[in-house]
């Protein structure tokens, strides 16, 4: 499913229905950064926006790209590539800003593209052990397995607040 159609609309509206059908499963929004697939619990996400003008804020870490105006609200945005020490690329047609709420304040993350919404049950999620040692692992909640895909589940709170 392409998510382009869902720009500007809260994703959480679909949530209740699917939850009613399957109590054990959770929905995750899947997006891509540098050919890897990441997932975030859909309940945390408010909207997904196309890339827009970002005002740089001085004296901040490099991964904080600046602030955007989202319908009158000033929201800081974080570049996931910078955060994960990946090489930066030009923004493209597919680049999205995923807006979510943490401790009542909105934050956006820049991702290469948003792919789809998937359902994972408890069984599909593997808790992370010490199988990776990269910088990324500290931001993880677990790894989701869907057919033969591996989806890294992010702990957004850790990413934003560290």
């Amino acid at each position, binding site marked *: 499913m392409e998510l382009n159609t869902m720009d500007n609309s809260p994703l959480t509206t679909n949530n209740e229905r699917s939850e009613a059908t399957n109590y054990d499963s959770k929905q995750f929004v899947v997006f891509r950064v540098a050919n890897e697939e990441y997932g975030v619990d859909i309940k945390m996400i408010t909207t997904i926006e196309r890339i827009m003008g970002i005002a*740089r804020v*001085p*004296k901040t870490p490099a991964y904080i790209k600046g*602030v955007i*105006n989202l319908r*009158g609200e*000033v929201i800081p945005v974080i570049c996931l590539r910078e955060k994960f020490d990946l090489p930066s690329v030009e923004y493209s047609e597919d680049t999205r800003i995923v807006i979510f709420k943490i*401790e009542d*304040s909105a934050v956006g993350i820049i991702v290469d593209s948003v792919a789809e919404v998937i359902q994972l049950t408890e069984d599909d999620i593997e808790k992370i052990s010490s199988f990776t040692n990269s910088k990324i692992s500290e931001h993880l909640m677990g790894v989701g397995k869907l057919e033969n895909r591996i989806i890294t589940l992010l702990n957004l709170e850790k990413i934003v*607040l560290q």
Partner: protein
Amino acid sequence: MDMGQYLEIFIEESKEHLQRMNECLLQLEKETNDIGTINELFRVAHTLKGMSGTMGYSKMATLTHDLEDVLDGFRSAKLFITPETLDLLFKCLDALENYVENIVNTGNEGDDDYKELIDALSLVAEGKPITEAKQNTVIKPETNTTVVPQIEDAGQLIIKYNEYDKNVIQKANEQGMNVFKIDIILDKGCLLKAARAFIIFQILERYSEIIKASPSVEDIEDEKFDFSFTVVVITEQAKKVLEQELNSVAEVNEVVIKPVIAEQISISDSHESTGQNPTQADVKVNEIKVETSNATTPKNIDASTAKSKKTGKTVRVDIDRLDILMNLVSELIIIKNGFEDLDGMSKANTYNESLEYLERVTTNLHDAVMKVRMVPVETVFNRFPRLIRDLSKDLNKDIELVMSGEETELDRTVIDEIGDPLIHILRNSADHGLESQKARIEAGKSQTGHIYLRAYQDGNNVVIEVEDDGQGINVEKVRNKIVERGLLSEDIAQNLADRDIIDYLFKPSFSTADKITDVSGRGVGLDVVKTKIETLGGVVEVDTEMGKGSKFIIRLPLTLAIIQALLVLIGKEKYAIPLNSIKEIININEEDIKQVQKQEVMLLRNMVIPIVRLDKILDVPNRDETNGKKQLTVVIVKKGDKLSGFVVDSLIGQQETVIKSLGKILSGIKCIAGATILGDGNVALIIDVNSLA
């Protein structure tokens, strides 16, 4: 019954009443005999008693009740006000404030029952015998002493008649109607006296017309009587009928009905109603006695209610709702800015008209909303007379506080925060600023020290000044202290301007006081003052002259939400500089910039002004350094009365900007005060002049 929903109202109203009480007490200290003030006090105490009782705060109710007793004594001239009793009243006020404070914090009035105050109050209430009253210059008629009607001598109940009453009674007599004076004594076990009195009134009204009552009808309804009261009625019925009817009411102990004859009524002199000079107006005709002090009460109550109306009815608005309204206005302004940015393609009149209209609407809406948020500084100032009074006692100095501009309005959020800094400064002025009485006389000054507290509006700022006519700040002493504490080397300290030396007073834990007093000198204070005022977007300055006094000047922004700003371009980025901190904008040549100890400076009309290169401070990327031009645009900003020059690439223009916070995650960035949204939807950061200048 759940009183939770009333709690907020109770707290707000209690605070208002306590404030009123405070003002009255201060007034009373000046004019001990002002019966109007005493009545007002009594009324306030009574209201507080009722309110706290209803809310179930029994300790508070007990204290106010005892307070009321004493005040009633003053009111009826049974007791006289002495400095000691006033102190006691002030202490009671503090205790009541503590109760309210406790209720605010915990929802509970607390455990302290202020036994010693209650004891003292009851001592005062009893301890002033009638004999003392007689010693007063005013010779009071004997009857005045019986304020609270005694049950034993019901016949002594007193009623005051005026000319009009007498005429009415005379007419009634002429028409063959009966005029009776009825003393009603209730059973001592009667619980709801007011209710019982109401039933009696109902019965009486069925048969007669009540023309007079003692205590007044209002007081009776408020249960402000002991167990008996007196009414005068005109009726066609015989005495017996009334007697029978009244005796049938439960809990009525005794009814004494006596006829009143007009010729036997004496009329009290007109000037008695001043309450100051009761004359020997009582005549013992028919057991009718004239009661002066009590009869003045209704009149004074009228006066005090009129006064209380003047103190202003407040509308309490949930601040959250106001903020929503505020946000809406912000949106409107953003839309307006969007309009302005539209290219003038459609120059049709309608476009301009609607744009102007929108502008007018937004301006009005902005004003209206701001007004709702505005509160007069009076709400902060009115606690200071008491503060100064206490300080003057503690420090044994004669201090007079002169306040002006109390009606100046400030944003509610600022008002809430400005109290503590002002208290610090006032204490400072009283303790360090003003000399001791002896020193003042030696210096040829008046014994009474003055502190002037002024507020006024100055453009987009509100200025609050605290000025004293004391000794002023000893700059040399501060300079020595700086060196002593190793903050600066001697050479540097000697070369610093006085103004910069005084700035050190605002550094943390810096105190020049030789000894620490209770009031101040611990070195905490002025730095807190400064921090607080800066977080409110304001500045503090000090003006001082040795031997003449010092002046603390606080400048605060009128509003915190919408400001006029100058948009500038630095590199490719747009920044906003608040207009009220901009002094002027000039163009200079690159070579006009000189170096002083690695700090770039420029000369502006013979003033040395430090230069701040915003592109460097803000790390603006990809910027062509020289830009090929020799001319630099410098925005001269003022912080207090220090100037500095901000170098920018170019100016965009002036715009009304809505300040938005950068949010929790980006908080704590020093050079940025917030963000604003431009007409094209992009974000521009607002430069924090205070931290950069």
